């Protein structure tokens, strides 16, 4: 079955089968391996992409079902060489260790911040409760979200006296 997939603001003509998942088509057909497979049964969040505005699990999404909808994957965040603020914040805050959960995690964080640039601790915890990270213990990820939220707010409403607070050396011993 031929269909057009709208991925990262680009149209892809693909030949799919009715029983193929979005995850399979992304990784195996389009070679977009940024989106990960880890449990393949909707428990870990490694396969998270954004469909429309919502963080969605591509392992339990039939590709045929997203015809005409806008899919954003980890490959679609950076603009050219410039990292997306969420990606930059993950990098600067040491929020990634092995990195295998990170694409899914970043997609969940991006969806959260797009709707709510200043989430509370509780909102962050609920927004990420479907993304398992075995390495970090999540605290640096929370720091990254707070940092990215600040950056996104600055981008939206640039203030003259904004102090760009994050330098790579800044590290707090308290988390």
């Amino acid at each position, binding site marked *: 079955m031929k269909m057009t997939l709208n991925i990262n603001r680009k149209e892809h003509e693909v030949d799919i089968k009715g029983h193929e998942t979005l995850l399979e088509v992304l990784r195996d057909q389009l070679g977009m391996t940024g989106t990960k497979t880890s449990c393949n049964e909707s*428990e870990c969040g490694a396969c998270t992409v954004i469909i429309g505005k919502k963080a969605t699990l591509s392992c339990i999404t039939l590709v045929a079902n997203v015809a005409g909808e806008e899919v954003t994957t980890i*490959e679609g965040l950076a603009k050219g060489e410039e990292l997306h603020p969420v990606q930059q914040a993950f990098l600067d805050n040491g929020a990634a260790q*092995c990195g*295998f959960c990170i694409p899914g995690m970043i997609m969940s964080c991006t969806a959260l911040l797009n709707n709510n640039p200043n989430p509370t601790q509780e909102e962050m915890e609920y927004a990420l409760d479907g993304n398992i990270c075995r390495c970090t213990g999540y605290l*640096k990820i929370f720091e990254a979200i707070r940092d990215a939220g600040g950056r996104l707010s600055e981008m939206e409403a640039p203030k003259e006296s904004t102090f760009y607070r994050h330098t790579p050396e800044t590290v707090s011993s308290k988390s």
Partner: protein
Amino acid sequence: MQTINKDYVNPVGKSVPKIDGKGIVTGQIKYVFDVNLPNMLVGKMLRSPHPHARILSIDTSKAEKLPGVKAIVTSKDTHLIKYGSNEYFFPHTVDQLPLEDEKVRYIGDEIGAVAAVDEETAEEALKLIDVKYELLPAVFDMEDAMKPGAPAIHEAMNNIAVILPVNFGNADRALKESDYIREDIFRTQAAAHSSMEPHVCIGQWENFSNKITLWSSSQAPFKCRESLAKCLKMDLNDVRVIKLAVGGGFGSKLEMLPMDFAACLLSQKAGGLPVKITYTREEEFSFSRRKHGMIYKLKSGVKKDGTLMVMTGEVIADGGAYCSYGPTVIAAAIMRTFMVYKIKNFRINGYRVYTNNPISGAIRGFGGVQSGFSVESHIDMLAKGIGMDPVEFRMKNATDPNMVTINKMYLSSNGLKECITKATEAADWKNKHGKMRNMSRGIGIGIAADVMGSKMYKSHESAGSIVKVEEDGSVYLFTGAADTGQGSNTALSQIAAHELGVSYSRIRCKSGDTEITPFDTGSFASRVTFISGNATKRAANDAKKQILSVVAEEFKAAIEDLDIIAEQVVNKKDNSVIMNFDKALDLCYSFNYGRQIIGRGSYNPKTTPVDFRTAEGNVSGSYGFEAQIAEVEVDRETGQVKIIKMWDAHDIGKAINPQAVIGQIEGSMAMGIGYTLYEDLKFKNGRVVNANFANYRLPKSLGTPPMETILIETIDPEGPFGAKGMGEASLLPTSAAIANAIEDAVGVRIKELPITPDKILKALKEKEEQERLKSPETPVSAARG
């Protein structure tokens, strides 16, 4: 010409971003999981459905005829050479075949493999293979397995693969001299590593040149190469093992699995086509490795003044079907106590037992998590028994810097007492301990120590590094160390840049490719920063000397007077700048000199041989120390535990990258919380019954407590820039800190992990009952009524 980031000059001690961080956050970095080669076949393992059986016959003829099947291998395609993990110290524990030949010993034991054009065909082919078994009686309980008459799983007497009798001083006399003695039995459960990237490998056999390439998600590519070469009868330089980005290992990817051999053998049979084998999550839970469940029996004595006189007991570990890293796990589970407590009398026998359960192996903490829970809970109870504050008790008995332990370990730098002091200050121990029970809140401590640069696997445990400086001043670091996500490539690049005197932004790092990087035993035992770090520092220093020798020659200066500091070649005599680094490289690669800058370094930790029959010897080049505190609140009605906050003070020598160090500590604590409260890999007749994330719960964002980390820098005399290892020690005290805090909160002691709500409720009920019986106001009969 490079863009040099001046912020990253002198990078040691700075929280520079991960060297591969951009690849990770953009999804561009490649894991073996992501690699697809042209004409690649899909491999699947043929596994035993029985926990214990003799293989009578394997008939693959039907499967071979299935269209799309390209190769099938069984033990007949191997040399029947066994591999293992402790060949040097425990040669008799080398007990696993690449593909089993006569017997299967657990559900999932690998006896063959299939390669086909796609997964469906491979799975179909597995079903067509006819294996005839003669079922044998199986044993799943470790204590049953040790009884006479239990089914013999290997040749080991009473299924005891390793006996470790550790005996120092005079335990019996010390018990007699003690004022207070207590006995406790602790039990810990099996757990799963749960790396987010499952085990995966691609094998390719170049038939004509007879060379193997194995891409493997591995923590120890050189160990992998060693076993492949040995079992397939190849030369080391004909076996290339490539590690790409690794999506977590935590010990599970430290040794080879039969799939690694199978992928190569299948490729050979399929005429050299690459074969990829990927574990599903269910296979990952069921057929990789797991944490040893242990029984830890302790009987110890103390003096009234709080002197820890003696510790005796027995440790039994459920090893499952094969030995894996079991010997060192049980050794480490016993020996860690010496690093923590000044104890003169000690007698503990360790038994590592075969059962027909899945294989237990290495996992972050190497037996230290099980012993940490047991010993540190026991210590709290000993302190309570003589009415002493558990912190005071630990301070009184904790080891000191520059001391030799009873088993001849040399603890040079040792910040243990400072860790305890700083952690208790931060947590406000004095005002909290024993004072929050009215709110069902409590606070508990655990302390630990770990080897940081040990020799426990080979005769030598060296690491090598090469620092190559290119014409344009860019620097390539080649290290055999395997970054599995913890950030060793970053830390080693920082060390290289710092020693070379240049910005971290100049460094690119290639790690863990056995064909092009120097040898390194791998990522385990928190050894990389210390051992590979020293090798890297030496390599960078060598490269620097080569550059300076050219400058010295050109300017007729003495090389000893020159140095490279912050991107400049300087004359130390008058602090004058001779030229910048780029110019110096122009000179090295100029018409006249044309001198290649290739620095090399190798490091082997200074240790003394350990006799594992007695546990005597200085096993490690440095030792790291740790104190951890948990504050908890217990819901007395539901038995559920909420962690209010964790504190961790860690002597890491020197933090090469504070942010990464803190990240390791936080990740360890989270893992420790999971293991303490809910992670539990369950078996029924040898089969894992909760082989998925729905039923094997991992720590999630919800309920993650705040954590406060305090880094203690003791500057180890042997460590690169004073650094020791880290990454595992923070997991060791967590369970006991939480258990001790629960005791402080509601007065019940749970001696069996995981500490689930039903165990707490049961203990609370029993306690209530006991108190009622004791209470003089309530007649016994009324209480019972």
